């Protein structure tokens, strides 16, 4: 197993957000974490990379317990995180944004260079000197992913990569994620949009009110419309 989350409970102050969340990701897998707004997807990701102050349970990455590690150490082990709200450094150029993400090469993980990333996201290659704050939403989304890939991770948490993007950009995004998978990267992506997730994922979890309600293959999910309707349909 690449990533194992056991009995994860998270809190914001006195509020209990996640309840006994279990998630497993195999090497090279693309796993979707599906759920509505506020279901706990982002909190799950933030808890895994140590950005939620109070959490209980066990998180293993490549067999090692990372639960109590600080964020930067978790990331340096090869667990990349792409936040939901993009959080581009708006005062930095595209090139400088990539520079912040730079980490040493890692065995067993695809190696990324700015040139390789410009090939993956051609838009970025055309605006290397542009300030992050002067890019469109889609371009910023690509830049956040590219920035995280500069750390040469072996697994990436992608928080709602399709959110707020134009249909044409969504398609480009799906292709980019598939290309990342072909490089051997393990990927967990959170989504509200089953359509998008179906295009690229091997397996899916459904989270609702901070609890995992379903775990299985995409095919199993498609064969159970009741689950889909209960937790995903608007």
């Amino acid at each position, binding site marked *: 197993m690449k990533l194992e989350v056991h009995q994860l409970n998270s809190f914001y102050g006195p509020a209990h957000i996640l309840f006994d969340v279990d998630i497993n990701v195999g090497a090279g897998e693309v796993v979707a974490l599906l759920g509505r707004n506020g279901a706990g997807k982002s909190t799950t990701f933030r808890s895994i990379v140590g950005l939620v102050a109070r959490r209980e349970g066990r998180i293993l990455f490549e067999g090692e317990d990372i639960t109590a590690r600080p964020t930067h150490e978790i990331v340096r082990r090869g667990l990349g995180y792409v936040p939901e709200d993009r959080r581009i*450094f708006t005062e*930095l150029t595209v090139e400088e944004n990539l520079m912040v993400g730079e980490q040493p090469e890692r065995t067993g993980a695809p190696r990324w260079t700015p040139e390789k990333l410009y090939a993956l996201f051609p838009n970025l290659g055309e605006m290397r000197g542009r300030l992050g704050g002067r890019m469109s939403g889609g371009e910023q989304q690509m830049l956040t992913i590219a920035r995280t890939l500069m750390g040469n991770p072996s697994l990436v948490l992608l928080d709602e990569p399709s959110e707020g993007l134009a249909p044409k950009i969504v398609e480009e995004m799906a292709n980019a994620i598939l290309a990342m998978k072909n490089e051997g990267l393990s990927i967990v992506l959170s989504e509200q949009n089953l359509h998008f997730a179906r295009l690229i994922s091997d397996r899916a979890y459904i989270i609702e*009110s901070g609890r995992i309600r379903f775990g299985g293959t995409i095919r199993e999910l498609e064969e159970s419309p009741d689950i889909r309707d209960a937790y995903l349909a608007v």
Partner: protein
Amino acid sequence: MEFIVVQFLTGLASAASLFLVASGLSIIFGVTRIVNFAHGAFYMLGAYVAYTLTERFEGFFGFWGGIVAAALVVAAVGALLEIVLLRRIYRAPELFQLLATFGVTLMVQDLVVMIWGPEDLVGPRAPGLRGAVDILGLAVPTYDLFLIVLGPLVLGGLWILFHRTRWGVLVRAATQDRDMVAALGVNQTWLFTSVFALGIFLAGLGGALQIPRNAVTHLMDLSIIVEVFVVVVIGGLGSVLGAFIAAVLVSELNAFGILIFPKISIVLVFLVMACVLIVRPWGLLGRPEGPARQPAGLSIRPWQPMSQNQRLVMLAVVVAAGFAPFVTGDYALTVLAEIAVFALFAASLHFLMTVGGLASFGHAAYFGLGAYGAAFATTMFGMPMIGSLLLGPLLGVAGAILFGWFCVRLSGVYFAMLTLAFAQIAWSVAFQWVEVTGGDNGILGVWPASWAASPAAFYWLALAVSVAGIVALRVLVFSPFGYALRATRDSALRSEAIGIDRSRVQWAAFVIAGTFAGIAGALFAFLKGSVFPDNLAIPMSVDGLVMVLLGGIETVSGAVVGAIVYKALAIWLVSQTDLSKLVLGAIIVLLVVAFPKGIVGFAEDLLARRRAKADDGGAAARTTPAKAPAKAPAATSGSGAAPIAAPKMEAAR
């Protein structure tokens, strides 16, 4: 004409050191969000260490090596301070770091006198730059020309550092979003330390470079820190180029202000600062502050009015305090009266800071204006004491109405800085308008009426006024106005969206706080029998901040406890030891580390924990009760994952 050119060059030379120190403060604030009050102390240390080194190692290399080595030594001390102290309190509420660095400043002031003595020290001239250059027939020191060149060189060097190295790019990234930088695998801990060390290096260098121009004194820290605050605010927090432009502007204003407007030379700089902040609230080259990210669960225990029992306890405490004249002597009563006055002053600032979320760095202005108001009423118009006590505070109210109108247009650090600027304006007027205020000599002979002249009577008067004021402020907290004010504090946007006029509510809060500060000030004038510009100077404002933070910023009435502890401690220490600042500073630092929520906040935590333990009965199997005192029962969570899922509310107040 020639004279103007030379004066201009002198101004530019002064700008160099100012720029070095200010850019260091700006860089540190940008990344760590710490307003480093100790920055002036490091500037002073740089000058003292450079003095010692250049005295010992003479000659060209001795001097220049000594200057650089001094800056490095001071930077190392700064790094040590960051590692030992600041790292522990980054997560503490905003401004707490200010309190800690203020404590350090106090300690350094005494340490410097211990090591180097109280006399001014005159350092050596710079080898190779001793002479003067003839410009338009007037002699300009070569060293000044060197400084004029040095400023832009340092600016260029910093630009290269921040734009051409990965470290610099990381620093700029962290200035915008620290958490994201960590989420990309960067170890923030060392990034912060290195940034702090760089900022302190610049401060130390600025101080070291001053020794051929000015004498080294143990008062130079406070004089520079105010100017540096002004520079950083005019230039824009976090902007190095802005700091450079503002340093030149401020230095030239100082150089020419004394010639053109000698009457208002001190106030000029602050007037310019106020104008800049009103037109461009985030400084010339600064960026508007994003909405402050409030740490989750900041105030998890909602405020509640006192229960009947708690009220009875408070009443008993006040009655007990009323018996003090029967058990203590006159000196103790005077001290107690002073403590009562400051409890009211601190409570008024606390109201503004905690309930309004508006941290004022210049609250002493309204205290001092109230004091001057009372003094004018007594000495100029011959009012009886009661009349002066009633009318005097009106001067504070007027000041708060005027200044507050401008201040509430800003928020966060910029609000703090503008309040500081206005307080300095008030101070400058009191200091320079000698005909009316007596200037530095103050106004004497503000004595209480005969019925209140005895220490016991005045103590009762101070106690009664102070208690009434504090109770009134507390009632306001739980009034509809108080709720509206708290709404503007918690979310300016949402409160405006439900129809609260944010700036009007905050302005009202500003005036209320100013009123009670003015009342405290008027009492203070009669307590001391005199009024001085010190009453509205920065140290007085800082005292207020220290009391509020010490008591606990997230509490309803922590400031009262903070005022009692701080004032009693300060007065007692002065009577006990010559090193009162060193001890007081050390105590403040220790308290900050031990009680990051203040004294009252700490006590409340303790109570809440005990209560939670009693509730849980140690039954929870999965979690330790101490870590999860208020977990929502699982049954309530099925309805949706709204992050605030009705925790058990402890009634701690």
